[in-house]
């Protein structure tokens, strides 16, 4: 079979590209490595998409002008972004509500505990898997050929010109030829060997929050065919999550929002960072790194009965005990040491009016490190303990693209017939940091750009 557009990957970006290209009359094939229930890459885990809009609409509670979106992006990336691509992403994000809705995707008001995103982000009814299901239905209805459990194992690229993709399916191999190629196969965050290159053996203890299928196979193939890279190869988005989460695919439910309410100690029973530095949504991304730097990449949050109902419930029940020593034994910490750490912390807490909704005045004095807000003595049993480990969300390394989503070769020339969309090129726009829903914005906008571009090239 000879296709106009061959797409590697089966998440949101791949499907946006497939739908766009097929609607322009191209014959499109989607090659998805995962089996049907797990299809969709990390899109299966997403909640929402960030979109610019000038007035409240649908479930969006107020205006979010493009200029404000750009400010937010510049702030989280410290300006590490391609300004042309960033501008394109934000401008075309305004079309996404209608695009999704017209393809059977539905929205719901922002979820409990996420009110701050109700203005800026459109939440998918039923979440990312519902989105993925709707887009697969639409693509199939349009006539896109979809192959799941089909892994891309090689790319025939001649001097920057795509000729075909080698695939493996049900144990047999084949070649899928096409006029154009779109890489939308995600990053390499599920490839522990690759992570180890950047992080050393500590990476073996990382948990992967998303799909186990993002092993970076297509990215690796492209890097070896002379495509220019973008993004820091040694960086990934790492947050502190519940240490009891499964190795892969734990998704949203493994997050722990209780760090600002208690203290965090390592395996030796020592505190190592200011738990009350800022609101959790602004700080959760640094805790992955902090825990990764501790022995065995483990941390333990301790709270007392005063704080149990102040944060979103987590999926795993905490360890619970009536004394600090008993809790220490349960979670495998030295009891005397933990007692000493808690005593020192309690003694350093200055009295104040606790208010977790503002930067309150409850802080410690004379402690190393200090806890600068929300510091209340751990003195009300029962005491609770959660284990923390680094959870990897995504990697930043990707392929460099032009505004038409064309890959850029090592010599700086745009590839003739190769495009990229989604996490595999998100580093062009998001060079650093993260802001809720931006991954979906980039994937959707560049998926459509790539689909349009590839269909156009295939025609001519």
């Amino acid at each position, binding site marked *: 079979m000879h296709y106009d557009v061959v797409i590697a990957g089966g998440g949101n970006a791949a499907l946006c590209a497939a739908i766009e290209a097929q609607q322009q009359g191209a014959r499109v094939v989607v090659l998805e490595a995962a089996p049907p229930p797990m299809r969709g890459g990390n899109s299966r885990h997403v909640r929402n998409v960030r979109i610019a809009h000038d007035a409240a609409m649908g479930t969006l509670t107020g205006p979010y002008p493009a200029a404000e979106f750009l400010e937010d992006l510049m702030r989280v990336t410290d300006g590490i972004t391609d300004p042309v691509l960033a501008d394109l992403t934000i401008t075309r994000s305004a079309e996404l509500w209608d695009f999704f809705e017209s393809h059977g995707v539905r929205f719901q008001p922002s979820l409990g505990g996420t009110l701050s995103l109700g203005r800026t982000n459109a939440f998918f009814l039923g*979440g990312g898997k519902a989105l993925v299901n709707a887009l697969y239905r639409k693509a199939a209805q349009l006539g896109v050929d979809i192959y799941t459990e089909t892994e891309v194992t090689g790319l025939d690229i001649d001097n920057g010109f795509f000729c075909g993709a080698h695939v493996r399916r049900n144990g047999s191999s084949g070649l899928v030829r096409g006029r154009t190629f779109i890489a939308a196969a995600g990053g390499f965050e599920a490839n522990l060997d690759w992570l180890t290159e950047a992080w050393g053996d500590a990476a073996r203890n990382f948990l992967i929050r998303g799909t186990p299928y993002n092993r970076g196979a297509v990215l690796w193939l492209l890097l070896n065919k002379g495509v220019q890279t973008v993004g820091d190869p040694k960086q990934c988005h790492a947050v502190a999550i519940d240490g009891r989460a499964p190795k892969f695919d734990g998704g949203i439910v493994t997050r722990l929002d209780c760090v600002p309410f208690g203290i965090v100690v390592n395996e030796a029973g020592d505190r190592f960072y200011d738990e009350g530095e800022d609101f959790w949504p602004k700080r959760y991304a640094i805790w992955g790194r902090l825990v990764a730097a501790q022995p065995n990449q483990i941390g333990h949050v301790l709270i007392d009965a005063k704080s149990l109902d102040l944060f979103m419930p987590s999926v795993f029940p905490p360890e619970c005990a009536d004394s600090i020593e008993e809790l220490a034994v349960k979670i495998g910490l030295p009891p005397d040491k933990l007692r000493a750490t808690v005593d020192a912390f309690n003694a350093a807490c200055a009295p104040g009016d606790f208010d977790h909704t503002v930067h309150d005045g409850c802080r410690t004095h004379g402690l190393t490190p200090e806890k600068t807000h929300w510091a209340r003595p751990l003195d009300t049993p029962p005491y609770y303990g959660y284990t923390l480990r680094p959870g990897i969300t995504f990697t930043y390394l990707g392929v460099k693209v032009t505004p038409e989503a064309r890959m850029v070769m090592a010599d700086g020339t745009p590839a003739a017939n190769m495009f990229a969309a989604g996490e595999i090129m998100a580093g062009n726009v998001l060079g650093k940091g993260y802001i809720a829903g931006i991954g979906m914005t980039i994937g959707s906008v560049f998926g459509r750009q790539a689909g349009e571009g590839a269909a156009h090239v295939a025609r001519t």
Partner: protein
Amino acid sequence: MSLALDDTTPTPNQAEAARLFTICNACRYCEGLCAVFPAMERHRVFEPGTVDHLANLCHNCGACYYDCQYAPPHPFQVNVPANLTAVRHESYARHVWPGPVRGLFARNGLWITLLAAFSVAGFIGGFVAWHDPTVLFGVHVGEGAFYRLMPHNGMVALFGGVFLFALLAMGLSVRAFWLATGAQERIGAGAFWQAMQDALRLRYLDGGGAGCMNESDTPDDRRRLYHHLTFYGFLLCFASTSLGTVYHYGFGWQAPYAWSSPVVILGTLGGIGLLTGPVGLAIAKLRRDPALRSDAAADMDMAFLVMLFLTSLTGLLLLVLRATPAMGPLLAIHLGVVFALFVALPYSKFVHGLYRFAALVRHAAENRAAG
């Protein structure tokens, strides 16, 4: 079927529901799909009574299974609709009055079939015993034709008695359910009215707007249509019977009534609903994705659909053939089926509507209390 006889020890299905809700409560992606998820978010601990309430609030649209990022083969193995179907089925037995008959829910299809067979046989036998065969197979027309086979007062005494017993049993069962699920809110007329609207529209059987998912992740609204046909068909038949009673006692007009009579028109329309609705629901049930099914409940569902269908079929046949010699046997069969339907009412799938309505009332009251 294992059942906890007290309200504090969860059954395995209730314990599984508590496990699932802990995951759902940390995720919340399904918040907009129906009433269950917002109601669930009001809790951090899922006691057996809370689980029974949430299970009966679930309309089984299936959307949260297909939308779930943690559905099998994910290691979390989240399948809320199948679990809540099993919990619901258990809850009918758990709260039933009188308690000792709770085993009736375990092999519902079998005993309802036996009951219907004995009931039909009883009416035929009764007619034969009371009359000679020429009356049973005779042609009877005109006012009071039916009552030549069975005196009206006899029918009223028998069916009225059974109906009153069914009301009593169902009332006490729903009361037990209401108390066990922890009634705290004051129930005002507003909550009641809201629940009525939600129930009459089947508001929560649409997966949050797209439609219910039955065979696959492709939504459609057919189950809601079939349920409306069944429910409103049942109501029309009930209205027809009630109007007939008014005619009889109020005006002295005796059945059978003319084709143009409102009693017959209501009954015919209702009968058509009760033929098409249950067939549609049964087909939807057979086509349902095996992942969404609960075997324990399937038998009870099908038994009730068959009984509704037979009630309507025999009633309509009786209407069409009432001026022929088939009227006598058909009357016996129809009365037998209706008798069995009413005897079984408190111990059949019929109670799902009562428990669900109670859950909707509680949900509406909780919403109002929360502002």
